[in-house]
């Protein structure tokens, strides 16, 4: 278990939650691909280019950790990601992995990385083949078949001391074993005289587990607006997808008289031109109703002019969970938003950039997967205007090669909000579309 050098990126401070994700062997990410996660991370690219796939392994880990039973190495069919077979998530192009397997590496706090390799079992399902942990001081590699002697030869002096203590206490030498703990591998001591007795000595997965559990996930499909919503817990962790917590969190803010959160939420809603107020009204002990201002701006005449969220446009019901998630998230907490711009008018898409930037400036780590050219351009504008520092923003452009394998081009913004060369940008599509129309229209008008 060697010491490995590590070069820290200079743009961020330590203690920042998830700072990078690497995935290989997973769907179109057949070759290993990595993305850096900054406070405002934008994932862009064509449909089915691999944007969601880079984040899905984190969601698989989340739903595995949150399952009320032990689902094995990974819960494939859960609230965040839904598969019915291992083959659905493994890459069809196995150029890197010779066997059916995929890897996910998660770096937290700039330099502490846990990498897990899941392989397909012959009997069905997945097993953990390897788990490695590396930081700037050490590198630890565990695999399920490790023998006592292999482990004993590799453990750190601290763990050797732990071994000696247990051996003395029990009067018999224990055996080192690698055991599965949900989606992680732990190092444990098995005491031979006591069947089933294991003492967990080292859990490298603990480095990333709280960050995975705390991940807030808002999928692209955020449910239909309802007359009432079930009451839920209100954090700080949110198992499953986030949208079902929205109404109860707002009710909780009201009950706690959390004026900052309520005011911030109202300001964001108004900034997006959706409504000027949202109120959560408990119906009974199990249900909460969400009522929103019927008009988009506050005025003397709008006081009390509230209607059920089910009676206004989709924009409010689909965007409200995004805004609440961003206000509910703590610094360093990862918020993964799939297409936050859905159902929003272009003006609101542009305004949404400031909402994301506000959260990023509070230290929340926002990962937004988007198809909105306006949203990206508005982020560039905020950087150029000095509203958010360029080193807080990272752009990742996803594209599939002709052989179907995803490639990612990553870009930093400079202080002018410019990103330099990208393989493609939304402007190209806009220019081509406008040119097509202008060529045809001007030609026809010239004939009149």
């Amino acid at each position: 278990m060697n010491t490995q050098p590590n070069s820290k990126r200079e743009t961020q401070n330590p203690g920042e939650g998830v700072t990078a994700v690497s995935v290989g062997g997973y769907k179109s990410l057949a070759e290993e691909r990595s993305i850096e996660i900054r406070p405002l991370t934008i994932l862009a690219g064509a449909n089915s280019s691999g944007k969601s796939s880079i984040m899905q392994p984190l969601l698989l880990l989340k739903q595995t950790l949150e399952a009320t039973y032990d689902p094995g190495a990974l819960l494939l069919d859960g609230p965040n990601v839904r598969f019915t077979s291992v083959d659905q998530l493994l890459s069809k192009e196995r150029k890197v992995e010779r066997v059916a397997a995929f890897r996910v590496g998660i770096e937290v706090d700039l330099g502490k990385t846990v990498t897990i390799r899941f392989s397909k079992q012959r009997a069905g399902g997945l097993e953990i083949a390897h788990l490695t942990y590396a930081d700037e001081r050490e590198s630890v590699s565990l695999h399920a078949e490790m023998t006592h002697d292999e482990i004993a030869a590799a453990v750190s002096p601290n763990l050797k001391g732990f071994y000696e203590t247990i051996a003395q206490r029990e009067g018999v030498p224990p055996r080192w074993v690698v055991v599965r703990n949900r989606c992680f591998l732990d190092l444990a001591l098995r005491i031979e005289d006591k069947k089933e007795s294991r003492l967990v000595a080292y859990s490298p997965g603990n480095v990333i587990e709280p960050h995975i559990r705390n991940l807030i996930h808002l999928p692209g499909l955020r449910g239909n607006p309802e007359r009432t919503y079930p009451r839920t817990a209100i954090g700080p962790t949110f198992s499953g997808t986030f949208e079902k917590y929205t109404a109860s969190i707002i009710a909780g803010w009201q009950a706690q008289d959390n004026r900052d959160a309520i005011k911030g939420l109202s300001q964001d809603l108004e900034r997006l031109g959706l409504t000027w107020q949202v109120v959560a009204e408990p119906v009974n002990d199990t249900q909460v109703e969400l009522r929103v201002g019927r008009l988009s701006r506050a005025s003397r005449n709008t006081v009390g002019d509230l209607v059920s969220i089910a009676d206004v446009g989709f924009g409010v019901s689909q965007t409200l969970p995004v805004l609440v998630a961003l206000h509910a998230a703590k610094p360093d907490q990862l918020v993964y938003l799939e297409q936050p711009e859905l159902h929003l008018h272009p003006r609101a898409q542009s305004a949404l950039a400031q909402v994301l930037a506000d959260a990023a400036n509070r230290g929340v780590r926002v990962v937004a997967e988007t198809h909105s050219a306006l949203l990206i351009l508005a982020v560039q504008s905020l950087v150029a205007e000095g509203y958010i520092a360029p080193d807080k923003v990272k752009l990742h452009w996803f594209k599939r090669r002709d052989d179907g394998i995803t490639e990612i081009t990553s870009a930093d913004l400079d202080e002018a909000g410019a990103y330099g060369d990208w393989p493609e940008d939304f402007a190209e599509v806009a220019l081509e579309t406008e040119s097509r129309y202008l060529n045809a229209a001007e030609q026809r008008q010239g004939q009149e």
Partner: protein
Amino acid sequence: MPKKPSQRLVVDASVARASGGADATYPTSKHCRDFLDVVRKICHQIVMSPDIAAEWDRHQSHWARTWRVSMVARKKLCRVNPSGDTELQDRVVGVAAGDSQREAMLKDYHLIEAALATDQCIASLDDTARDLFARAARQVKELRGVAWVNPSLPDEQPIPWLAGGARPEKTRLLGSRPET
């Protein structure tokens, strides 16, 4: 389209205006759009001095604005602030025969300034100004190496010129232009 060596091109606002909008006429508009599109795809840079930027702000079409945003975002915009060599300007416009020619040359002199500060390439629809500066080039040697291309004229093969690296080919230079 494969990338070629990049040149810093001065693109007159006349090209930006003709690329779309109410005044655009076919096929000039299409030629201008195609020209700018190839500039972007080949990764040439465009030169923006304060005067050129002001002209673009006044005249650019919606299409040209989108194009310019893309160029800025891709860091393909070269900002210059020419020092304002009044002695050279006086020599250039001193060639004018009368006030109207003098005004025409002064109106577009910012293109010459920007080109001399960069790679000496100008794209403009203004053939009158080109002829005036070509005449001046006979007396002012600094102008002779400036290439001037009209994107709206397919006979000048502006697109192949861009694709070939936008080199200051002799036939395009103000110093080589036949007298009109």
